[in-house]
């Protein structure tokens, strides 16, 4: 393997990691701050992809899909917190698992009724449709680099909000000790509403942005759900910086594993997870809500 292709694989690893981070952040927000296990995470990702498909088909403009995804995601998240999750406060994880499993069934069946079972494609917006030639055989799609850029902006933004802003402080306080936060005058109910809305909107948005890359088809969220869980278990449950570390590790193992040990590619990711669980059961980064 030449140095050139080593760096191409490194680029593959990093861009895959950034996509994974975008996708997993919503799950880790909900789990870290509210302790909610959301199995429907992959289904919300799929909702995002289908929103992108429907909006592009209806209006022929990809850029409209971003606000559409954010708005629908926020609304969906708020409704789910208000009418479903808030009723489970204090209940055990099994209830959450059942609830989110029910949501998966609902969303899958809804998708089938509205869009049918055929796979669909979403065109990459014209301005990003080009590819940058890397060698005489290989070029890199600009849209993938765009997704990387979105991922980086997202990491910086969420890091700043969490560490520096008043909202971030409230979030961390609510995550650390719900009752104490309440006693200090933080409206925990409102915080939860906001976190669920934002967390699910993140996931839906990730689906929207990934749609031109991933195409749009039934069950596309299943794989994403598993990968997201691997990412947050690797990185440390509920930690956003941990999710970043987890994503990078998973991206590296995936890209180079497929290059050097192609026969074990499927297994390597989980082997890495098991290794981390044995050595550092709390994940690579231990923290609460940051």
């Amino acid at each position, binding site marked *: 393997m030449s140095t050139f292709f080593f760096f191409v694989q490194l680029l*593959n690893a990093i861009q*895959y990691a950034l996509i994974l981070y975008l996708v997993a952040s919503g799950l880790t927000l909900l789990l870290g701050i509210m302790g909610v296990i959301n199995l429907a995470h992959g289904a919300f990702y799929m909702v995002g992809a289908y929103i992108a498909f429907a909006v592009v088909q209806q209006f022929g403009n990809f850029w409209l899909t971003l606000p559409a995804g954010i708005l629908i995601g926020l609304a969906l998240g708020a409704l789910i917190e208000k009418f479903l999750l808030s009723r489970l406060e204090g209940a055990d994880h099994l209830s959450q698992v059942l609830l989110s499993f029910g949501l998966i069934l609902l969303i899958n069946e809804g998708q089938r009724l509205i869009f*049918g079972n055929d796979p669909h494609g979403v065109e990459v917006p014209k301005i990003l449709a080009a590819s940058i030639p890397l060698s005489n055989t290989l070029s890199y*799609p600009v849209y993938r680099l765009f997704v990387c850029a979105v991922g980086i902006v997202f990491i910086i933004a969420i890091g700043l909000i969490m560490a520096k802003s008043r909202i971030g402080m409230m979030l961390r306080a609510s995550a650390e000790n719900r009752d104490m936060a309440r006693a200090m005058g933080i409206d925990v109910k409102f915080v939860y509403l906001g976190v669920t809305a934002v967390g699910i909107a993140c996931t839906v948005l990730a689906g929207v942005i990934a749609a031109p890359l991933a195409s749009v088809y039934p069950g596309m969220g299943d794989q994403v759900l598993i990968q997201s869980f691997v990412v947050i278990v690797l990185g440390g449950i509920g930690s956003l910086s941990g999710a970043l570390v987890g994503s990078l590790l998973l991206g590296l193992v995936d890209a180079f594993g497929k*290059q050097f040990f192609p026969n074990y590619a499927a297994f390597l990711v989980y082997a890495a997870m098991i290794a981390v669980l044995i050595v550092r059961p709390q994940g690579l980064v231990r923290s609460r809500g940051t």
Partner: protein
Amino acid sequence: MRKTDLLITRRSALKAVGGAAATGLLVRAFPTPAIAQAAPLRIGFMLPYTGTYASLAKNIDGAFRQYVEEKGGKLGGRSLEYVMVDDQAEPSKATDNMNKLVDRDKVDVVVGTVHSGVQMAMVKIARESGKLMIIPNAGADDATRSACAPNIFRTSFSNWQPCFPVGKVMAEKGHKTAMTITWKYAAGEEDVRAFKEGFGAVGGSVIGELYVPFPEVEFQSFLTQIAEKKPDAVFAFFAGGGAVKFVKDYAAAGLKKSVPLYGPGFLTDGTLQAQGEAAEGLLTTLHYADDLDNPTDKKFREGFKKKFNADADVYAVQGYDSAALLGVGLEAVKGDMKAADAMYKAMGAAKIDSPRGPLSFSASHNPIQNIYLREVKNGKNTFVKIAHANLADPGTGCKMS
């Protein structure tokens, strides 16, 4: 949903019984001994009516009924009634579902299925029970190789069939080296093996085999490896959403221009609308194309369009021919399924004028058929030429007893 289906069939079964009784009375009043068996023949469809393969099931089931209707609602003088079981493409439920059809519903013929894993469980029961089974899609080689049986017929393809001729096509284009890429699962591995056999036979060499964990769709790392090794061509097998993403990623990585992509027709069947520009110009091989333009195909496509307001596809053709094959068997024994040996013999010797072209059967009951080279043009899989005429599966390991 399944419950209502069964209720309806039960109700129509009651009606049928009533009708049969009435006919019996009439027969007694006006003695005409020619009516052999009044009870309708029970056809058991075991297909994935829900889930990813639902559209395949719909087209197989629909085109089967279309054929029967075109023949006036009867095959070999017998009217038909249908029992439907949704197998959900779920191998773990396959044995139960098949037993339901055979033991509880007492069907005369089983038509199914799409998914190869489910199929092999059905094959086992068909072999044990001796029930006539017609396979309208699943391509698992073994169903008409080591697991073949007199009562098992296939009207679709063995995985080997559409892939073997790809090597010859590549050699004709002057390609000497190739890499393969597919999901790491049974069908993918059978396809790659068939391609290697065909490519090796014309002196080509496979310089790399890539296997993507099933059902993962992150191809970037593999595409980089293809760009690094620079083969003359790539053989790929994916289907459904995976095929859409692979073909788009392949084009976006700039490989389409430098390393031409080939594969069995599933790479571009039912996916072209989603693949768009990225699929244009791809060459694939299959036993059907969108514009074969023979009279049977024309009539079939018009009939299908009228009945379902949708375009027929290769799966519909396979359903249509399943009914045609059953018709040949029933015709030969005048609708008397007890004469099983004679019936199977007639089916094995059947020469069907199929929408796909001439269709006959090899000793292991797998189709002998043309494999066509198709090119994607303006969102259609258009006919280029016959890649391999009258191709028969080798049927390795088949011992009919």
